[in-house]
């Protein structure tokens, strides 16, 4: 029950099937990594679970702590506890980070009630400090004119403030230099908890040196073709995705 369970999920976009009977179980308290080359469905998985309307669920189920999320609206899934750190965070001109996160927190409050502003800013500044984000950023517009690293740190900041039960990080490492990568990884590690499941989607093994996963899954052609512990990531790094491909075409399943 205490898990994000995806079972036999098939998803298409513009009539083309991307996820093909994909299954995954992410229990609370664990960090899983999904690795795979480009075009195998990594981002589709993230967007489909978040409820993006362009992604058509054809069959299968997805539940969070036993609750079906496939019938819910995007915002309902969010409030149920699923957070997606975007690969390409979207600019929202004129909306400050402080107001944005506050609006997101207020959306989780009972109708007509708002969070306490003083406590909010206190926590916001503390989380920003941990992520090495200058205080001035609170009055910057969301993602507007941010560098790649600033955008990703801002995603982690939102995650830290919203405290979701399940986090999906979609290629959070892309476009980061090593220093930014360490800071982001530190922010994610700080979020590791018995009450939270974290799914790290990445193309490269590099990030997993800093966020050490409990399980690693290899995504190929819309489904998980191989799972293992953290050593699997190193193996992929060493031998390349072609190694998986060769195994698959040779009909060798793990």
């Amino acid at each position, binding site marked *: 029950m205490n898990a994000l369970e995806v079972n036999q999920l098939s998803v298409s976009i513009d009539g083309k099937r991307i996820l093909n009977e994909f299954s995954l179980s992410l229990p609370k308290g664990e960090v899983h990594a999904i690795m795979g080359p480009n075009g195998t469905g990594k981002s589709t998985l993230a967007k489909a679970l978040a409820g993006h309307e362009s992604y058509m669920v054809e069959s299968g189920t997805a539940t969070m702590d036993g609750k079906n999320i496939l019938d819910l609206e995007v915002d309902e899934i969010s409030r149920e506890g699923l957070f997606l750190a975007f690969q390409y965070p979207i600019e929202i001109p004129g909306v400050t980070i402080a107001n944005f996160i506050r609006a997101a927190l207020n959306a989780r409050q009972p109708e007509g009630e708002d969070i306490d502003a003083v406590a909010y800013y206190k926590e916001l500044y503390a989380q920003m400090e941990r992520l090495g984000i200058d205080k001035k950023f609170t009055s910057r517009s969301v993602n507007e004119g941010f560098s790649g690293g600033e955008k990703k740190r801002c995603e982690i900041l939102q995650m830290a403030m*919203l405290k979701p039960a399940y986090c999906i990080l979609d290629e959070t490492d892309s476009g980061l230099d090593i220093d930014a990568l360490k800071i982001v990884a530190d922010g994610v590690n700080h979020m590791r908890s018995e009450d939270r499941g974290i799914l790290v989607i990445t193309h490269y093994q590099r990030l997993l040196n800093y966020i050490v996963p409990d399980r690693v899954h290899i995504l190929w052609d819309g489904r998980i073709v191989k799972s293992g512990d953290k050593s699997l990531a190193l193996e992929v790094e060493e031998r390349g995705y072609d190694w998986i491909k060769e195994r698959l075409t040779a009909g060798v399943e793990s």
Partner: protein
Amino acid sequence: MSTQAAIDIDREKGNFSYDTTYDYDAGIGLNEGVVNYIADVKGEDDWVRDFRLKALEVFNSKPLPTNWATKDLENIDFDKFRYYLSKGQEPSRTWEDVPDDVKETFERLGIPEQERAFLAGVEAQFDSEAAYSRMKDELAKEGVIFVGSTEGLKEHPEIFKKFFGKVIPTGDNKFSALNSCVFSGGSFIYVPPGVKVQQPLQAYFRINAENFGQFERTLIIADEGAEVTYMEGCTAPKFETTTLHSAVVELVALKGAKIQYITVQNWSANVFNLVTKRGLAEEDAEIKWIDCNIGSRLTMKYPGVILKGRKARGEVVSIALAGEGQHQDTGAKMIHAADETTSNIISKSISVGEGRSTYRGQVHIPKHLQGCRNNTECDALLINANSRTDTYPAITVRGDDNSVQHEASVSKVSAEQIFYLMQRGLNEGEAMSLAVNGFVNDLVKQFPMEYSVELKRLIDLEMEGSVG
């Protein structure tokens, strides 16, 4: 300060009317008899009566500007309106003396509460005349005059006659001519040299009657080095028939004076709002129009500044929100007439559903002037695929030493923005209103806090209604 004390621009809150009896009614239609009736009940001097009668001729001789403006103007039937309705020409100085139904109207709109909270003076106009007018005593001691146009022309002709109709001549356009023949109400303000009025003066224009035309006339004079901020708000009930609002507002800022004029227009969707607003800025003077148009069926309004003195500054900051069935045709005019004058125009419009917004700008810098600058930015945001926006900038800049900068953009709230915001837990309406508020955020900040909070709230309401 209580945010509730602001002028309420929630559409529904203004949607009520009282069956009231009018002691003075000029009847239906527009003719010399109506104009004379108005001059008679106001006991006006002959020069004012002549001014009105001449204006009627100008009005009748001018065609509707449908060669450039919308054909919707042809749906105005000038013979069906009532041009003057009042309970009397003397405004009360205390709310107790205001007739009950009128007082209740303004109480529902929160006006007495705002007056106590943050205003230096209030005029509350009910149909044709001010029902209430009062200014803080200390301002009167400093020589500030804040009265209705009827009283101003009668009691202070030596001040007002000099400028009345000079910034906006009768024949400026068909609607300034209309206003000039039947004007009633509006504010007359004079601020003596060096007096800086700290708190805003406010007028509230309320239309209560059906088939009615409201034609207030406002003239604000800031003498040398004086400063004043004036705010106006407007509402009307939703009638089945059309209502006409056609004001003329003239501002005069003498040497080194500053005038800031703030409008929050929230007319109901049956109102034709056709307003002429212009200021004259003398040497080193500054005039700033902050203009927010949310309601009405059709608004045509292009606040302008004539930069007459060296180093005069003019600014127009405007926000227009065109909802379903609305057309906001707004803009600005900057006429540079002296060296080293600067002007700034920032316009943002939002079109929702079938709403249409149009920006018209005119900037004129003649060849013989030196060191003049204009900056124009107009940005449009479209909420649905069938919304519409048009931009008609007319910029004439001559001379080597003058500069102009013009930027225009059209953007949409993208599906990916909405997805991103909703992924953080906001529902679709909240996501939309956050994005729209972001679009106007830098301008809303220029409004006094009481107004900016209400603006944000109104945008929230509009956006919640715009999503399925």
